[in-house]
């Protein structure tokens, strides 16, 4: 496996849970935009699936909806290698064993990818529904652009692109 094939971009969420679908919305917006060598994956947020999804990856970019108390539409960025995920990170998930748990479990077992960047989009409404709140829908393009720039500047992606 070459370096470029081990970069994964994961969108997490449930589009039937209103703003919980924000991460999926970002991923869908970026399909066709990110270099083909970056594997794109949509996940429901089941932590054990995430462990599988990034198993052979050196570099992982993940985006999920969160509920931290910040204004809706706030975009958070965390480097999971250097900081523990705050507990609020998993509290918007419908999974008991979600994103934060998967990351902390991987850390406990020494299985974290070499690079793991987590984006969180602050949601407002996580009730059943298929629409994003206006405040959240509004920031999806900006979040997508931020993430795209980060992906394009990843060393693995850049070096693969130049060959």
């Amino acid at each position, binding site marked *: 496996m070459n370096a470029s094939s081990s970069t994964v971009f994961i969108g997490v969420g*449930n589009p*039937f849970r209103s703003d919980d679908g924000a991460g999926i919305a970002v991923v869908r917006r970026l399909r066709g935009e990110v270099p083909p060598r970056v594997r794109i994956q949509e*996940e*429901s*947020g*089941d*932590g*054990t*699936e995430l*462990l*599988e999804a990034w198993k052979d990856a050196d570099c992982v970019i993940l985006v999920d909806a969160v509920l931290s108390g910040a204004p809706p539409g706030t975009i958070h960025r965390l480097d999971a290698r250097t900081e523990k995920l705050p*507990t609020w990170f998993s*509290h918007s998930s*419908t*999974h*008991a*064993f979600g994103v934060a*748990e998967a990351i*902390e*479990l991987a*850390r*406990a*077992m020494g299985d974290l990818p070499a690079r793991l960047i987590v984006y969180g989009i602050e949601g407002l409404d*996580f*009730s*059943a*529904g*298929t629409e994003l709140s206006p405040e959240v829908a509004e920031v999806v393009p900006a979040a997508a652009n931020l993430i795209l720039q980060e992906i394009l500047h990843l060393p693995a992606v850049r070096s693969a692109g130049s060959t």
Partner: protein
Amino acid sequence: MNAKSLKVDFLARVEGEGGFHLKVKDQSVKEAKLNIFEPPRFFEAFLRGRKFTEAPDITARICGICPIAYQMSACHAAEDAFAAKPEGAIRELRRLIYCGEWIESHALHIYLLHAPDFLGYEDAIQMAKDHPDAVQRGLRLKKIGNAIMTLLGGREIHPINIRVGGFYKAPSKAQLQTLEEDLKWARDASVETALWVATFTFPDFQRDYEFVALRHPSEYPLNEGRLVSNKGLDIPISEYEQHFAEEHVQHSNALHSTLQERGAYFVGPLARYNLNFEKLSPAAKDAAKRSGLGRECRNPFQGILVRAVETVYACDEALRIISTYNPPDRPAIEVVPRAGMGHGCTEAPRGILYHKYAFDERGLILSAKIVPPTAQNLKTIEEDLTDYVSTRLHLPNDRLQWQCEQAVRNYDPCISCATHFLRVRIERE
């Protein structure tokens, strides 16, 4: 400890969020209210006007943990309405994919959600530091369950290969055989799981429950059977609504299900085990015996043990299906819609999941009703908490909270539909 009110942070390790509230006065429990479940009304409304073919995929979105259960109940309900009955290899493939869901769901609950309670850890992450091998075994078991779902379902989360009448595409024998080696490992690992769980200390607790599960004449129930109980219930699933009622309770968005004649009831692994023990495979019965379970188990804390036994069964059953499988001539039977009512009831990992639909002559959904297992256990969980806490009021709040959480998790409540964070509140007056 008078007039003491305590708000505790999030209750982790139940699917979704919710809350419970205990009110204690004069050293007795006045109220135990559980608010961890939102009925799938949105989905019921969303289904109206859609074609019968869409019901399995839409309802699968209700729960990321047990999509197969939702798809199966939806398929069976539509087939019931349209007098279609897939048999033979299609029926076997349905059992196989359901086994995959049981394996992955039970492994998740046993290892990552419930075991930490028994071993005294805050969560699986803390537990992993001291028990890395156990956590790895749980993760691998779960992955093997997922592999069955991926192979048959197209993908494990919200599988796309399931349809009313059968499947879009049936696997070859050789494809199924790729699962065999892992499943043999999984069967052994499930036995080990049962023996490991058997070393836990279980609180001495039981009540006079009414257990409700499906019962089939020749197999441990997954997709089909009559609804039976240990207190005389024995009905076809089409009579569900004549015996079970949903009552709206004020403290919760949830509808609490009750048996009209007798009140609260208990669904899930313990109910299945008690009502269908004879139908377990020899290896599963043996694992039960070796882990100290009798023919009957009434202690909800031992549900974790019964889950392990059911995981042995699911691996065994999956292996049996694979070894006798011959692909069907067609992956699905023809289904011709007509106006009418259809019922579906299957055994989700957490217990019976009931669906009812009314269709018009084109197969469009006129109305839908979905009763998930967790809604059916809510009243029993509240009663458990009341009884359990009553004898433990001398404990400090943090200890009491821990034990309450453990008691709630006995039921592996799936509250994916909940929109409110679960806060534990113990109020002492």
